[in-house]
């Protein structure tokens, strides 16, 4: 069980680094989808052998939503908006990857100081969860396109989910599903918002929204 869980965590962290270095929106969406599918498997490994129906349902629901539904919604938003790649982010792709390593190091430091409850996955997953959360925040702050920012929000949520699932001895199913539903609504709204930004401004550069005024002379 342990090596499988470790491999899962390493793949999630590698996904974070790849997200920071990729400029293609299709590639970014696929990376987020792969990360979502991996996260779906986390609850199966986190609680040892006892796979109750509850856990199986959570795993399938999370994997489906994060790995299939969100990517399809975002891909549709991308197609409607007619954009292919992120050009000229605020922080370059190489520098972003270096920042990703710094984020990872910071996460290890933070995780070491936290009183983490003993669990089969908690020790390895806590730094990965923090790294994923911070990577999502970094993507939101440093990218120009609204779609990449929505992806950053998804990555941030992935990190929170990873933290919750691996830490909690017994996270109530309802809470996790409620969070998933929230994210679902958020992505839905973002898809619509992206479409409207595109219709109003002809591009998804959120930088242009500073030009918004309610009065034009």
């Amino acid at each position, binding site marked *: 069980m342990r090596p499988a869980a470790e491999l899962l965590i390493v793949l999630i962290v590698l996904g974070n680094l790849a997200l920071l270095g990729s400029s293609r929106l299709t590639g970014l969406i696929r990376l987020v989808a792969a990360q979502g599918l991996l996260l779906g498997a986390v609850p199966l490994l986190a609680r040892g052998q006892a796979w109750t129906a509850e856990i199986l349902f959570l795993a399938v629901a999370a994997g489906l939503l994060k790995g299939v539904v969100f990517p399809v919604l975002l891909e549709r938003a991308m197609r409607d908006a007619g954009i292919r790649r992120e050009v000229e982010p605020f922080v370059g792709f190489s520098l972003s*990857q270096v920042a990703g*390593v710094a984020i*990872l190091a910071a996460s290890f430091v933070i995780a070491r100081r936290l009183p983490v409850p003993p669990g089969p996955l908690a020790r390895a997953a806590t730094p990965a969860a923090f790294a994923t959360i911070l990577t999502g925040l970094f993507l939101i702050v440093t990218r120009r396109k609204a779609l990449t920012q929505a992806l950053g929000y998804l990555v941030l949520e992935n990190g929170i989910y990873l933290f919750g699932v691996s830490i909690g001895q017994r996270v109530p199913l309802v809470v996790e599903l409620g969070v998933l539903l929230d994210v679902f609504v958020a992505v839905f709204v973002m898809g619509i918002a992206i479409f409207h930004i595109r219709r109003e401004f002809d591009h998804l550069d959120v930088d242009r929204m500073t030009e918004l005024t309610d009065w034009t002379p």
Partner: protein
Amino acid sequence: MTDLLAPPLLALAGSPLLLGIVNKTKAAFAGRAGAPLLQPYYDLAKLLGKGAVYSRTTTWVFRAGPAVQLACALTAAAVVPLGGRPAALSFSGDFLLLAGLLAAMRFAGAAAALDAGSSFEAMGASRELQFAALAEPALLLSLAALARACGRLSLAGMFAAHPGGPAPVLAAAALFAVFLAENGRVPVDDPATHLELTMVHEVMVLDHCGPDLAFINYAAALRLWVLGALLLGPLLPRGTGPGTAAAALAGLAVLTGLVESATARLRLVRVPQLLVGAGTLAALAVMLARGGR
């Protein structure tokens, strides 16, 4: 005694063969017959039989370059173990010596290229050093990850420890990028190109001829062997002898040939991204490596 001398002797005798294997693989992939496997040896013999010509604008730096490169490569071949056997020269912290030797070799090459006074060679030297500046952190971080995972500070100890976990695999992936970049293989540099504007390693040696060029080519072949052995060392199973390790190196040469055939060369501005990516992989390996057990 034979145990200690087998790895360096194998490196001395076998390293040009690796270049032959790479070229043969590329030829087979392209549907050509290709040059014989032993062609690098014939080339070396031919070059050694010639005289050298020196431009009047060059100084002793230019003449010393090839000899220094060869000396560094020979010492590096003595430092790196092959398979599970200890290297001829092994002490605690010898991986830093290896990184230093590779850097000194590169410096000698770049200094000789600059001394020739040709702008093309200076451009090649500038690019080579730019890539090296990014490849070196990846190399050192991968070696640090291995040292941390194994709890040993000598290369022989790292190769013999066989730590589990993801760190050695990540370090090997980072080392593969360094291997391709340092040896001027395809995603970074094309050894077969004939356009000065796109050459990196090849343009630096344009003004060298005869025995000097033979020294440089032989040193480059040795570097291919040394970095390959470094990359494979922690991955080979316990109790691998020098013979099996050499066979694995031949497999790595075939893989290099396949990579060269199947991928296009990266745009010059994209190369740093590849090397920074390798560096991040290595840094991740350092963080995941748990202390020696």
